[in-house]
């Protein structure tokens, strides 16, 4: 069968906000798919709620809707646009669930929309545990003993039959939300109850645990002609039991003979054929390390995180081809876009090894539970390619940006052996580094294998790294040892450490000896066919395939793994910068290490180097390419942090000068600048030790906002109210960042305002001003933001524009700048200036149609803003209201406090837009996952300082028809104000009735403001966690609560008696 000509318009559903388990990989997949469909001549309509994505750019689809991903809103789009078909398999679990829902509601039938790609029955068969298990039984494919349950009692029945341990997997959830392993009855009660709650169909699969088996994944594709291929197989180093998203993964698999490989390949192909999937599919299998026994774990009938990884690992663009398959094209008629000389119907052959390591948020959530299990916890991942396993692993480790550069922790010596062993046994996110420490201390591989079930193959490889390290130490300045270590991926920094010399000295020796990396091509075919893919990785071999062109080149540094505070927005800006560089006639070269992103799609740039973003690795590329300059503004703090040392080596940093970047980031110099340009800032001082901090704080007056300098996402930023808290903080913060002083600012309450601007040194373009809903003190990334501002006077707007222009010009910004202001009762103060692309760039670009990253890049390349179609100054206000709302992944992170504060906690964002503010707010709340109901029960537990404010809000909730529950103190305040309230017992008083009320689903909204203290034992913390774990929205800022009630009021009829 060939390309469908009976359909014209295709609706593509994106995956919504970035959350743990559903991240940038779907922007990559969706973007590829939309472009592929357009390439084939179809009209593409895209809907996604996430404005930070490339896929929601007008260039990617013909029609773009940024609307909440609910059946309601998508139905409206379908009715309006009347697409011929819907492609649901590229938007992750969200996209798939939407398709199932739309079909159930009859919307597809009513509007004659055909589902492309994979049939609904197949989706259901793969997704519904019961149907899937039946299918596997029919095919005689083994699945672990399991049961589908809808009540806790059924779980007890299962245990009677199969015993502990068993795994709980809720149906129709992503990233294993709410799942876990039950070892005993306590676990059973907690995890099963949770799982049932999380599943939208209140259904869980419980299955006998096969923890310890090897976890192997196959990425398979099939077309309508029943041609089916395996794109990639991957082996998880962590055995079954740790979510594959959190596992360290290697491609291709290492410890299977051809017999096992073909056995699992056959099963995977049989399954995709049986399910009649047209497109991509992910099959997860468990293989007994001691026999040919295997089990199917699960099947994802769609592109996934693993398929993005497989695409980057092999070069084979799964999503692009899956989209084309969905419109009827077959694998044998499509050219392999990598080689351009062979066909898509083949199985990529790798001639390198790929390692993926997940990036966890525990540098931000220090209290979070770090034990890994079936619930994914990572926010992002890095990938690295090498010609040895050790090389790929060590490159991946130094791509993580944890401050870890090697197989071990920087302060590894400080741990006792017991601590190390316990950390390994605990299967925490740091297990790899502790295993390195253990081997270094002589713990046997057999012991480590017993604790972790990590295959001896990998443990031997880890040991090899430690062996090389020891031999380096014993053979200082030995060139053969240096060469050997480089071939196994050791960085100059690590070699320098073992040789007791500076990183730069190792580089000097290497240069003298000609020990330089070469770059090899990723070509899908192990060099069998000639290929021109501009996709390279560095390694220490003899032949360099990355021959620089004669064109002038600009090197763009990407932003590395997705983490809290540095998300997909920076990839968006990176990609736009690349496009602008190409428009300007230069060759655009990207360096990045994140396999999930659009920027690491080799078709985006003229050349892609899939390499760690470290000084050494970037310098090697610079040496090979000799670019005109390097751009650091778009890759977040990752890229900015590399600028200094690159510049020291004579590399030209394009755009805002390093000195000016430093002036924005160095507290003292920044203060001097503000005085010079007469822009006020909150009173503040820097401190390098505890004593100084206390002095300064007393001088400024509590409360103060404290934070280390040079951080992203407000890491370790806190508001402290007294001396003790400050003392406590100084001990932690200084530990967190010893090289930089701590900033202590007066904490001003007031409205927070955010502005992004572009400057070419002469003119400043300000696309718009955003007003935050939550008062200053909540991190800007966690605040809801409104465009255009609704509470600012013209005078205030003028002042903001004036300050922005002064700051941009004063800092000699060439490119982009992000500024946060606070509007307090004493006036407007600048809180923070970031001389780089920010989180809000895509949001504002999309609203105002000022392509900020592109304009900024052009300015960096010397084009004057006056030549652009946008006049200098603040741009005219666009009609309508646009609201950005943060999205959190708290339900996936145990023990993490959900209270909003100066430290960023959200993983993603959504946009709501409409004609009125309340409608836009409503959409943003709904898109962020909040179920806005006009009645229900609201629980108030309010700190004393907030009670006056909260009473007013409670009254409004009550007035709308909400039943109000409150804890004793809060209830008293409410009763005093004549608000009908039911008092619930606080925790510890009576029978924990409060928690039970939440557990029983009798509360729809929790409003909780924090009594000071981060202690996990605190009641507030337990209330907040209980709500998150039970899927009840927990609002910790009264501003958010006020917004919610305003929206509810706007959609509710008034019921006043006569």
């Amino acid at each position: 069968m060939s390309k469908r000509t009976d359909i014209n318009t295709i609706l593509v559903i994106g995956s919504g906000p970035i959350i743990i388990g559903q991240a940038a990989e779907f922007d990559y997949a969706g973007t590829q798919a939309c472009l592929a469909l357009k390439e084939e001549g179809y009209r593409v309509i895209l809907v996604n709620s996430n404005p930070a994505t490339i896929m929601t750019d007008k260039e990617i689809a013909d029609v773009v809707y940024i609307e909440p991903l609910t059946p309601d809103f998508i139905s409206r789009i379908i009715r309006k646009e009347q697409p011929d078909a819907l492609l649901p398999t590229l938007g992750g679990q969200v996209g798939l669930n939407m398709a199932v829902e739309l079909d159930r509601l009859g919307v597809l039938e009513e509007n004659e929309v055909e589902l492309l790609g994979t049939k609904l029955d197949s989706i259901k068969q793969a997704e519904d545990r019961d149907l899937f298990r039946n299918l596997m039984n029919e095919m005689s494919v083994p699945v672990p003993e399991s049961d589908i349950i809808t009540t806790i009692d059924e779980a007890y029945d299962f245990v009677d039959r199969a015993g502990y341990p068993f795994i709980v997997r809720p149906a129709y959830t992503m990233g294993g939300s709410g799942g876990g392993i039950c070892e005993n009855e306590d676990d059973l009660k907690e995890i099963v109850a949770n799982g049932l709650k999380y599943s939208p169909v209140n259904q869980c699969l419980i299955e006998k645990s096969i923890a310890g088996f090897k976890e192997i994944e196959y990425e398979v594709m099939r077309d309508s002609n029943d041609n089916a291929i395996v794109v990639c197989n991957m082996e998880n180093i962590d055995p079954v039991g740790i979510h594959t998203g959190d596992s360290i993964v290697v491609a291709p698999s290492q410890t299977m003979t051809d017999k096992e490989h073909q056995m699992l390949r056959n099963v995977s192909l049989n399954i995709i054929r049986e399910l009649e999937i047209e497109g991509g599919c992910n099959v997860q299998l468990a293989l007994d390390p001691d026999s040919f026994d295997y089990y199917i774990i699960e099947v994802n009938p769609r592109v996934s995180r693993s398929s993005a990884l497989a695409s980057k690992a092999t070069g084979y663009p799964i999503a692009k081809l899956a989209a084309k398959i969905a419109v009827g094209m077959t694998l044998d008629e499509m050219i392999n876009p990598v080689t351009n000389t062979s066909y898509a119907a083949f199985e990529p052959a790798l001639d390198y090894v790929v390692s993926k390591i997940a990036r966890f948020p525990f540098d931000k959530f220090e209290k979070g539970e770090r034990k890994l299990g079936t619930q994914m916890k990572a926010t992002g991942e890095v990938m690295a390619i090498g010609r040895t396993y050790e090389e790929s692993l060590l490159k991946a480790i130094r791509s993580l940006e944890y401050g870890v550069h090697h197989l071990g922790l920087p302060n590894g010596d400080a741990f006792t052996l017991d601590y190390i062993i316990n950390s390994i046994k605990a299967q925490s996110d740091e297990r790899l580094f502790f295993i390195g420490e253990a081997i270094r201390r002589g713990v046997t591989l057999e012991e480590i294998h017993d604790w972790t079930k990590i295959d001896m193959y990998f443990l031997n490889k880890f040991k090899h790294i430690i062996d090389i390290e020891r031999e380096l130490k014993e053979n200082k300045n030995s060139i053969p040892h240096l060469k050997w270590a480089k071939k196994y991926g050791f960085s100059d920094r690590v070699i320098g450490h073992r040789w007791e010399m500076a990183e730069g000295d190792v580089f000097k020796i290497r240069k003298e000896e000609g020990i330089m990396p070469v770059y090899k091509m990723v070509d899908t075919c192990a060099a069998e066919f000639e290929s021109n893919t501009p996709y390279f990785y560095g390694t220490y071999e003899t032949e360099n395939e990355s021959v620089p062109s004669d064109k002038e080149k600009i090197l763009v540094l990407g932003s590395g793994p997705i983490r809290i505070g540095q998300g997909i927005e920076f990839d968006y800006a990176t990609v736009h910068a690349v496009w602008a560089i190409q428009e300007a006639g230069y060759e655009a070269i990207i360096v990045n290490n994140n396999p999930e992103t659009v920027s690491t799609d080799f078709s985006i740039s003229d050349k892609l180097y899939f390499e760690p973003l470290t000084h050494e690795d970037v310098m090697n590329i610079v040496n090979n390419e000799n670019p005109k300059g390097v751009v650091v503004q778009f890759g977040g703090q990752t890229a900015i942090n590399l600028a200094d040392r690159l510049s020291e080596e004579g590399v030209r940093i394009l755009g805002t000068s390093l000195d000016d970047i430093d002036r924005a980031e160095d507290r003292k110099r920044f203060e001097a600048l503000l005085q010079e340009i007469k822009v006020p800032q909150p009173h503040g001082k820097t401190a390098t030790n505890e004593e100084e901090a206390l002095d300064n704080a007393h001088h400024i007056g509590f409360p103060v906002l404290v934070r280390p300098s040079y951080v992203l996402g407000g890491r370790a930023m806190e508001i402290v109210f007294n001396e003790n808290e400050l003392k406590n903080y100084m001990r932690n913060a200084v530990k967190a960042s010893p090289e930089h002083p701590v900033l202590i600012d007066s904490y001003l309450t007031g409205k927070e305002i955010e502005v992004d601007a572009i400057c070419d040194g002469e003119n400043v373009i300000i696309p718009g001003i955003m007003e935050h809903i939550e008062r200053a003190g909540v991190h800007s990334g966690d605040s809801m933001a409104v465009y255009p501002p609704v509470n600012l006077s013209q005078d205030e707007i003028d002042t903001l524009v004036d300050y922005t222009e002064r700051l941009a010009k004063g800092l000699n910004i060439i490119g982009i700048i992000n500024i946060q202001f606070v509007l307090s009762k004493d006036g407007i103060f600048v809180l923070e200036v970031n001389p780089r692309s920010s989180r809000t760039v895509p949001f504002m670009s999309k609203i105002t149609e000022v392509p900020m990253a592109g304009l900024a890049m052009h300015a960096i390349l010397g084009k004057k803003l006056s030549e652009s179609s946008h006049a200098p100054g603040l741009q005219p206000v666009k009609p309508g209201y646009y609201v950005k709302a943060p999205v959190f992944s708290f339900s996936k992170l145990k023990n993490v406090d959900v209270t909003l504060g100066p430290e960023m906690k959200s993983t993603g964002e959504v946009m709501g837009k409409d004609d009125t503010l309340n409608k836009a707010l409503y959409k943003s709340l709904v898109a962020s996952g909040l179920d806005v109901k006009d009645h229900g029960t609201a629980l108030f537990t309010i700190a004393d300082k907030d009670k006056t404010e909260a009473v007013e809000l409670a009254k409004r909730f009550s007035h709308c028809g909400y039943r109000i529950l409150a804890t004793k103190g809060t209830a008293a305040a409410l009763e005093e104000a004549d608000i009908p309230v039911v008092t619930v017992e606080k925790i510890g008083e009576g029978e924990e009735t409060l928690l039970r009320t939440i557990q029983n689903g009798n509360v729809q909204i929790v409003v909780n403001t924090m009594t000071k203290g981060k202690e996990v034992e605190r009641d507030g913390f337990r209330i907040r966690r209980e709500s998150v774990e039970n899927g009840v929205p927990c609002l910790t800022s009264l501003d958010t609560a006020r917004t919610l009630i305003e929206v509810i009021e706007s959609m509710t009829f008034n019921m006043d008696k006569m």
Partner: protein
Amino acid sequence: MLNDIRYLVLEDGTVYEGYKLGAEGESSGEIVFNTSMTGIQEIITDNSYTDQIITFSYPLVGSAGFNTEDSESLLPTAKGVVVREAVEHPSNFRSQENLDAFLKKYGIVGISGVDTRSITRRIRSTGVMKAMITDSADHEDTVRSLESFELPRDQVERVSTRTPYISTGRGHRVALIDFGKKENIVRSLNQRGCDVTVMPHDSTSEEIMQLKPDGVMLSNGPGNPEDVGAAVETIKSLIGRVPLFGICLGHQLIALAGGASSYKMKFGHRGGNQPVKNLAANKIEITSQNHGYAIVEDSLKDTDFEVTHIAINDGSIEGIRHKTEPVFSVQYHPEAAAGPHDSSYLFDEFMDLMTTEGGRQNV
């Protein structure tokens, strides 16, 4: 950690410095590359590689180790093995030894630590050529000796069984002419119940027909099909008398017997990811391949054969069938080992053919 130095020297003068692997000594042969990522043991023990030096383009060779079950012949006859890294500590429940030990056991000279991607690229652009693995650092001398070195032409004779033997089964009686067969052909037939008699490469048609076979299987094997002239005559006289199924060299010999001709490919097809189109079914199968020769397409024109399978990447012929007689063959390896099992249906087709046509010589 640092091993003894060894060199790989190509006929064109390119020298790669690496480390000693496997047996002592030096070894010359035709250098080829294989892109498979698994099945290292199967590949090294495949007698089709007789007199060849195998370069693995995948860098970590032998990570799952070597066992007692996965060899495709009793005695591997490859002339050398070239790898980026010979995995020292393999891991698999069946693993008995690592690559180095396995090569030593069979006296195969190897080299590790070389840029196998670079070698692959060189072979791709220059074509297969002679090469030597040696400890000698006198590369000019090595190149000179390579220039005078003649690739042997008697490979089939050396690897074929000398006397017939039986691998019993209760079903169809199959005569398997052994040109250097992979064990998995025998296993694939046995699995389908066949009673297999493995016959020497130079068996006459009379010797074969005396077995009263339901079908004759022509195995894979090393070298140039034109060097196996006697077999061509045998096949000519078998066509029409008994169902014939040829694999790889067996396929080429059927084509020659039918009047077609073969040619040497620039660098051949060697790997486990080769897409082949089954023209009748209009379907793709991913195949295991190992061939340096192929059938000249035009030469089939005036024969009784038609093309059934083609390689989609270069259009070369991958399968043919006699237009009227029960004879078919494929250039690739339906027995897999190493490689995908997509094409095992061909054995089933052979079974069907034997069922419907098998008894004809007795009529």
